[in-house]
């Protein structure tokens, strides 16, 4: 990458890795949760809905602290994962990805759920009478028709992941080369004398990345919408 120091390249790649991994890992769960919220009724649904939306309304620091308590090496979930699978989140880049995933989750679920709710449910009924099992109807009808919402959800969550600060720094701290993503690096640079110039460079990179993500998603959404309805006469 032209004009970037190896250090800066490392920061950008780490940020991208954290954002991409967080989106890829949370997407299947988000689709499932969105489907359940859009298509089923059960007691306590409002509670599930509230929990999903919690990261959106809580201060990020609180989310980060909660992650630290639950997923820390001695936390109830963190210790289990470590013992059984050898997965460690605390103070690793995987922890940064987890924090991003949690923070972006409500945005993702919301976008997907809205597009699922907009689908005429009788299309699914029609597919069932034609012989489709529930799982097949979901894969062949619901999922493709919800594609614009899925793309939007992915973008929102990806952007949220790139910009994640509060929960990340609380949960996995600011470790250069391991958990120091773009926002964290920019913040550190603004805290040292003479770091402004480099902070500006990194900020410009952040802007470019965000715009690129936005344009890509608009393009994909346009294609998906066009494929869905073709041109109506």
């Amino acid at each position, binding site marked *: 990458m032209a004009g970037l120091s190896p250090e800066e390249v490392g920061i950008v790649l780490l940020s991208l890795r954290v954002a991409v991994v967080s989106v890829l890992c949370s997407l299947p769960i988000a689709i499932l949760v969105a489907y359940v919220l859009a298509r089923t009724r059960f007691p306590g649904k409002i509670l599930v809905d509230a929990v999903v939306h919690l990261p959106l309304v809580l201060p990020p620091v609180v989310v980060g602290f909660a992650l630290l308590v639950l997923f820390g090496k001695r936390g109830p979930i963190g210790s289990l994962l470590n013992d059984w699978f050898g997965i460690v989140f605390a103070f690793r880049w995987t922890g940064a990805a987890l924090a991003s995933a949690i923070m972006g989750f409500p945005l993702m679920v919301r976008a997907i759920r809205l597009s699922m709710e907009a689908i005429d449910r009788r299309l699914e009924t*029609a597919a069932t*009478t034609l*012989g489709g099992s529930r799982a097949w109807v979901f894969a062949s009808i619901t999922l493709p028709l919800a594609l614009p919402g899925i793309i939007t959800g992915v973008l929102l969550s990806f952007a949220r992941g790139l910009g994640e600060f509060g929960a990340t720094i609380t949960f996995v701290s600011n470790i250069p080369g391991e958990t120091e993503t773009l926002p964290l690096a920019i913040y550190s640079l603004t805290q040292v004398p003479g770091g402004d110039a480099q902070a500006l460079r990194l900020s410009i990179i952040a802007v470019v990345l965000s715009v690129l993500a936005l344009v890509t998603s608009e393009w994909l959404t346009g294609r998906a919408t066009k494929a869905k*309805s073709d*041109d109506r006469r």
Partner: protein
Amino acid sequence: MIDVDVEQQVGSFTLRARFTADAPVVGLFGRSGAGKSTLVNAIAGVTMPRRGHVRVDDVVLFDSERRIDLPPQARRIGYVFQDALLFPHLSVEANLLYGHHLRAPAVRFIEPRHVIDVLGLARLLPRKPGALSGGEKQRVAIGRALLAQPRILLLDEPLASLDVPRRMEILDYIERLRDEFHIPIVYVSHSVAEITRLADTLVVLSAGECVGVGDVDDVMGRIDLKPYTGRYEAGAVIESTVVAHDLDFDLTTLAFAGGELTVPGINAIIGERVRARIRARDVSLALDKPMGLSIVNVLSGRVTAIREESGPVVDVQLAVGETVLTARITRRSLVQLGIHVEQDLYALVKAVSFDHRSTGYA
């Protein structure tokens, strides 16, 4: 053979429908709100009735006592919805084959090529549903249901969202597929014209109950059902074969068991079977063979029954060969001509009394 007995509560509406019917086309007739869609949904398995059973050709699809409730995907009922409901993201071809791929090869007896031919879909295959007209959408929807290899075809007001010329076109297609595929059809409608043209057996639904079941003309002629069926022209349906076209005068000659009929030109090839409906009020009676008359159809027959209606009219039933015609005349004519059962006389039918709706493929 379809055997339905279901009880279901939807909000404050109670459906308590019971009927059995064995006919190529069963018409399910009722005004809006009579419970037609609720009944159709229960047959298709989209909703679950509280009690009862649904059987098609000895296959139990639902039985509350035996705790059988096949899910819709296992019922093999070709449900065609009012507004087609094609999958917008799939091409016409992919829509057509959606159900075909899901059925085991062992149960496949309807071939895609056959369906595409009969419904005239070849030209549409690569298109997306968004680029189809209403009539084309409905044809694709019917083809899609057929290719899911159904035990019966359930058509729920398939013409409701179409304009009048399209309706005629789709009716023609429905008649054609009835003859080509031999799948029993349940045709749901609130239109007397559609139902009487297509159906052999009629089920009348009102306020969630089946108030009448039987042959179309029997049911439509029943005075006690008038409040549900509305004003209906008594008449006879004649199964006939096209024998000639008079292109100069745009007339078609139909042969039936009992004679020949001349009707305004219809779009059918010679040898094709056609169903013609003769309304009772379009039939006049004469004691002797009339001469110098503009009426082209003069059929000789024998009176089999006289049905007294209230007021000034009577319905005279007469056998023309093996076909039964009904003539609606005034009571005074009956008395003056001294018409009685077993009498031989002539029935006169104006050719122009056959409109576009009264002739169609049989």
